[in-house]
Every structure is written in structure tokens, then in C-alpha cells.
């Protein structure tokens, strides 16, 4: 105590000092600071948030992806949820990659927890985490040949013949 409490404004200020206007789309929904970084910079941002003596975002809460078909050339969004456990402040940052070639650097060297999270993200969205030690499917069957959470695929099981579309509201 006695030290100035960490706030969203300070976090934003420190990040802007370091990375300038490369960080965009700042917002704070329900007080949760959110911003977007260029895809190639994800590790630099993670490392800075981790190392900085005041920021100390050293816990990876969640890592997942979202498919935005309407964002051309950057359809796949990868989201990192970080937590500063000492000040109990959370933060969310996003990077965008094209669906054609969704290459993103792995965060496994910084956070061991990213290992399974990145496998799950690969499993459902096909994000290719460069440098991941074991990037294979984790939840779906190994034979699956597509990434089911991408919006170009239907939710329903396509192998089913006897379910009447009218009766099942497809």
C-alpha cells in the first residue's frame, strides 16, 4: 500500500509509451480494458506486460479465438485474457490473422498454460501457433478434417440422414 494503485488509465499510458499507436481499438467494456495489437507483436506485448514492474500481468486466464467472417483479410481473432494477481486487475488483448493463413506465434514459452489452450484454439479454429511443441487436436476426434467453430460450417451433424429438417428446425 501507499503505492499508486494500478488503473486502466495507467496501463493504457504505459503501453502507449512503449508501443505508440501500434495498439488500437481501445475500449473498456464493464471496466475490462481491451485493445488490439498487430499479430506479429503478440509476444512483445505479452512479454512487456509480464516484465514491467508495475503492470505484472503474469497469469494467463484464457486464450481462445473468434471467427469474424465480415473482417476481410483478418477473419480469425485470437484473444488473450491476462490477470495481474497482485493488483487483481484483468486485461484482454486481441490480435487478428487472415483465415487463409492464420499463423500466430505461440505463447507457450512465456505461459505453460498456453499449451492446451492453443491446442484447443487450433482444434476449433485452425490457428497455426508457430513454435508450439505439440500442436494437435485436443477435444475433437483425430480424424476430423475441418475446424468446426469457424462460421462457414454448419452446427448440425452432416452425416445424419433420418432427421427431417422441418421437424428438427434446421
Amino acid at each position, binding site marked *: 500500500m501507499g503505492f499508486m494503485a494500478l488503473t486502466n488509465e495507467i496501463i493504457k499510458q504505459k503501453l502507449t509509451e512503449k508501443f505508440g499507436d501500434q495498439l488500437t481499438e481501445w475500449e473498456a467494456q464493464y471496466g475490462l480494458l481491451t485493445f488490439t495489437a498487430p499479430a506479429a507483436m503478440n509476444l512483445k506485448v505479452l512479454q512487456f506486460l509480464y516484465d514491467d514492474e508495475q503492470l505484472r500481468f503474469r497469469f494467463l486466464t484464457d486464450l481462445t479465438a473468434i471467427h469474424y467472417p465480415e473482417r476481410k483479410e483478418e477473419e480469425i481473432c485470437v484473444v488473450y485474457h491476462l490477470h495481474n494477481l497482485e493488483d487483481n486487475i484483468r486485461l484482454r488483448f486481441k490480435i487478428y490473422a487472415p483465415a487463409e493463413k492464420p499463423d500466430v506465434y505461440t505463447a507457450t514459452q512465456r505461459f505453460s498454460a498456453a499449451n492446451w489452450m492453443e491446442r484447443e484454439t487450433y482444434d476449433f479454429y485452425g490457428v497455426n501457433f508457430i513454435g508450439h511443441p505439440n500442436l494437435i487436436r485436443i*477435444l*475433437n*476426434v483425430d480424424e476430423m478434417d475441418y475446424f468446426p467453430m469457424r462460421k462457414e*460450417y454448419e452446427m*448440425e*451433424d452432416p452425416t*445424419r440422414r433420418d*432427421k427431417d429438417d422441418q421437424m428438427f428446425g*434446421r
Partner: protein
Amino acid sequence: MPRPVQYNTKVKMVDIPEGYSGDGFFSSTFDKIVGLGRKNSLWPIPFATSCCGIEFMATMGSHYDLGRFGAERMGFTPRQCDVLLVAGTIAKKMGPILRQVYLQMAEPRWVVAIGACASSGGIFDSYSVLQGIDQVIPVDVYVPGCPPRPEGIIDGILKLQDLVQNESLRRRHSLVYKELMEGYGIQ
């Protein structure tokens, strides 16, 4: 003062099968005797994955007591069991495991699909869920419901008992049965 003794006089016995009896002997056909024995001493193996499994636990509990029908002895190894009770959603990744459990059971073996998910995939009309366990193993009795009440599960077991009692001893060697098994890729 001692309490009055209450004897249980409501014990129900199964009927003697059709046959010929005289002093000290009884003769009938193997079909009937074996069917009677199998029917009233089914050993189930539960394969419970979700909410239907909870209803199934109630079915096994003292209130509904499946033991009244001779099936109180759950086996947790498929090698000793007669009936595979599949209760719950089977994800596609679980399919091969369910199939392996079925393959480890010795003939004669029966399968009951308990609930909508095991029967048809239920509400999970989805890329990750097996749309009915009959896609990987043959099923004898389907119990509808989401989840079915214990009465429903007991009704399914009673239906299965009818099948077991009346099954021909030659059925498992018949061509039709072999074709059914080959349809599932089981030798």
C-alpha cells in the same frame, strides 16, 4: 412387549415354464429353462455419461430398486456382463470406447439405449456428438425421454427381459445375426 412379527408375504415367484411334470421330475425345453434363468438374472454394466446416468442411479437405488427384477448386480467389467446400459450423450470421441466395451462382452449380450441422446443424439444435433449409439453397436431396446424417469428405465428393462426370455438359443448362430454383426464390422 415384543413387536408383532410382520412376514413379507408378497414374494413373487416366476411361473413354471410349460412342460411335463410328474413325481420328482420335470421336463421342458432348454429354450424355456435357459430363457427363464437369463431373464431373471441379468447382469448389467452401466455406461453412464450424463444426466440419464443420474436417473439410472435412482433406478438402482432403494426406492425404485432394479433388484426386484433380478438385475441388482452391476458388473464393472464387461467380460462378466449380459446387458450394456448406455445412459447419456456419447460424443464421437467416446464412440470407439463404447464399441470396445461392447466387444469385450461375451455372447449373449444385449444393449439398452437409455434416453434421447443414446438413442438418437437427442438435442445435440452437433458435429461432436454421435447421433445415436446404433451407429457403432446394435441396440435391443431404446428408452425414450430426456431424461427418462426410473419407471421408464424399468419399463425398458422389462421389455428387454421379454426379448431375453423368448430369444431362440440358435439366434446368435443364425445368418441374420451374423449379417447384423458384419453390418457393424464385428466378427
